[in-house]
């Protein structure tokens, strides 16, 4: 177990290094430097700025310097905000995104799982068809369409909510963005739970439980539910990825000063910020995936962690 964990952590570090290298060189190809191309500062000042960012050294030296700094968990100064280290910018922009993401995750799981179980229990009846129809529409409507429609209906037409969360997020105003962000996942989790639940309910041991005369609730929740949840658990990794990348769209539509919007704004002219956010997101996802894998081992005793290392 410990050995498995160690090897996984080592693997994650290698992954992060590969990502850092790829992003570093890609970002090097973005034209422009740490100054405004329309009003270039005088040469001496430019040289000072270049030296501050180590841009006067060969690319290989810059790369080594950058990796050394990353190893010390320092992301370096941003191009756009000269005196601000990227980690401080991330720390400032992450909280709204995190609140939003957690809310969306809660919506997707807390609504999706019960809806899926409900649909499975009413298979091929009206409730099932209704849920399925909603779910297929939910996976089809892109998040940027859903967000814009919600914005129009609930903010502009009905006036039930506000946008532009500047001083700390307020919960009612977060409902629309969270619904936009979690909408796809909610629909996906619903479909997945339904399919998996139907599959499990057909198993022999469920029929046995029923034949013994156990009450419906006991059969559903004790005998079926836990096994039906296993495939849903594997979706948690991609779900987290969807929430991260969805934030680019949602924060833009609802004017939320989060990390997704920060990344979109930085992408054209702030390589240190790009590298920082890319690494931050990747770390988040990798850690999350690792946690899900470990969780999977606990949830399903048939899988022994460590043995599954070489799939």
């Amino acid at each position, binding site marked *: 177990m410990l050995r498995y964990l160690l090897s996984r952590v080592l693997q994650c570090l*290698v992954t992060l290094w*590969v990502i850092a290298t790829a*992003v570093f060189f890609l970002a090097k190809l973005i034209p422009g430097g740490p100054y405004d191309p329309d009003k270039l500062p005088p040469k001496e000042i430019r040289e000072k700025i270049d030296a501050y960012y180590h841009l006067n050294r060969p690319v290989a030296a810059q790369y080594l310097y950058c990796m050394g700094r990353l190893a010390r968990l320092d992301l370096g100064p941003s191009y756009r905000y000269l005196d601000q280290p990227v980690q401080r910018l991330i720390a400032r922009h992450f909280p709204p995104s995190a609140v939003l993401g957690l809310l969306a995750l809660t919506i997707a799981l807390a609504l999706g799982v019960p809806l899926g179980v409900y649909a499975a229990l009413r298979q091929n009846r009206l409730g099932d068809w209704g849920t399925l129809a909603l779910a297929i529409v939910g996976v*089809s409507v892109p998040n940027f369409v859903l967000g814009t429609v919600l914005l129009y209906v609930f903010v502009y037409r009905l006036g039930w909510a506000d946008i532009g969360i500047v001083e700390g997020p307020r919960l009612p105003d977060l409902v629309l963005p969270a619904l936009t962000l979690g909408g796809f996942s909610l629909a996906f989790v619903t479909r997945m739970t339904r399919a998996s639940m139907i599959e499990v309910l057909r198993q022999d041991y469920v029929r046995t439980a029923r034949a013994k005369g156990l009450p419906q609730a006991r059969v559903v929740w004790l005998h079926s539910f836990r096994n039906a949840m296993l495939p849903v658990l594997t979706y948690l990794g991609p779900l987290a990825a969807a929430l991260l990348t969805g934030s680019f*769209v949602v924060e833009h539509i609802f004017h939320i000063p989060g990390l997704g919007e920060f990344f979109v704004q930085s992408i054209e002219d702030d390589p240190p910020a790009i590298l920082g956010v890319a690494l931050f997101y*990747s770390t988040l*996802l*990798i850690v999350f995936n690792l946690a899900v894998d470990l969780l999977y081992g606990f949830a399903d005793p048939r899988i022994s962690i460590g043995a599954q290392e070489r799939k």
Partner: protein
Amino acid sequence: MANEMGQGNDQRTGEPPAFRRSKAWRHLRRNRGAMAGVVLLGLMAAAALVGPFLWPFDYAGGNLAQQFLAPGRVHWLGTDEFGRDQLARVLYGLRVSLIVGLVAAAINVAIGSLYGGVAGYVGGKTDDVMMRLVEVFYGIPLLLFVMLLMTVLGRGLLNVFVAIGLVYWLGMARIVRGQVLTLKERDYVEAARTLGASPARIILRHVLPNTLGVVIVAGTLRIPEAIFIEAFLSFVGLGIAEPRASLGSLVAGSLGNLEAQPWLLLGPSLAISLLMLAFNFVGDGLRDAFDPQMRA
């Protein structure tokens, strides 16, 4: 001829693969949702192909005197801030979406098949290293890399092909590798090797053709995802450049005038949602038909 398709029997079912495939097609044709999806897709493709020739307005040329017209008899979906006909732009965007979907998915399939095919066929250490690399990139937000590539390459249709095509082949590589791994143990491959066929010939002639069914299904599923990614890129301003239109950039454009000209949102959002819906129906049908485990 039929024999060539059905070389070797399937080890699990004992039926020739061609037969299994035809059963899958029959299953697919009976699936009402999938057929509805196919019809919807056909209609939208026809509109995207022929529509711009029939519709009297151009997607790029506008008349500033006619900006922000509400939908009416002349401009069915109204006009935008430059007086451009919104329906013409939606039709153009639909065309862009379909082209991006097809081309980007084809690039994904090509790269993924080649990569997965080589890894699976060569096996051993090479396979280990190649698949480790895929694993490394699998767990990270790939959209970030597509966005970065678009920034480096600059906006434009061609670069959208390249960026999406270069990044999203990982799943394809995994699928093809798995297929090749099982196929290369088959007797007829062994026979070809014994007869002295070169590895290239074995891969191209004996292994890859037999992965075709799986590749087609997985490749079809890649199309809507590529379409979504293009629309997303254009929505955040990294995809198709003005004056060209993309369904994503059209939704983004309507966002700025949402309060006064909400009708601009209608066309592009309906078009992209219906497109995704149709692909989802077809995709579900394909999965049902080709995955015997899912078949009830």
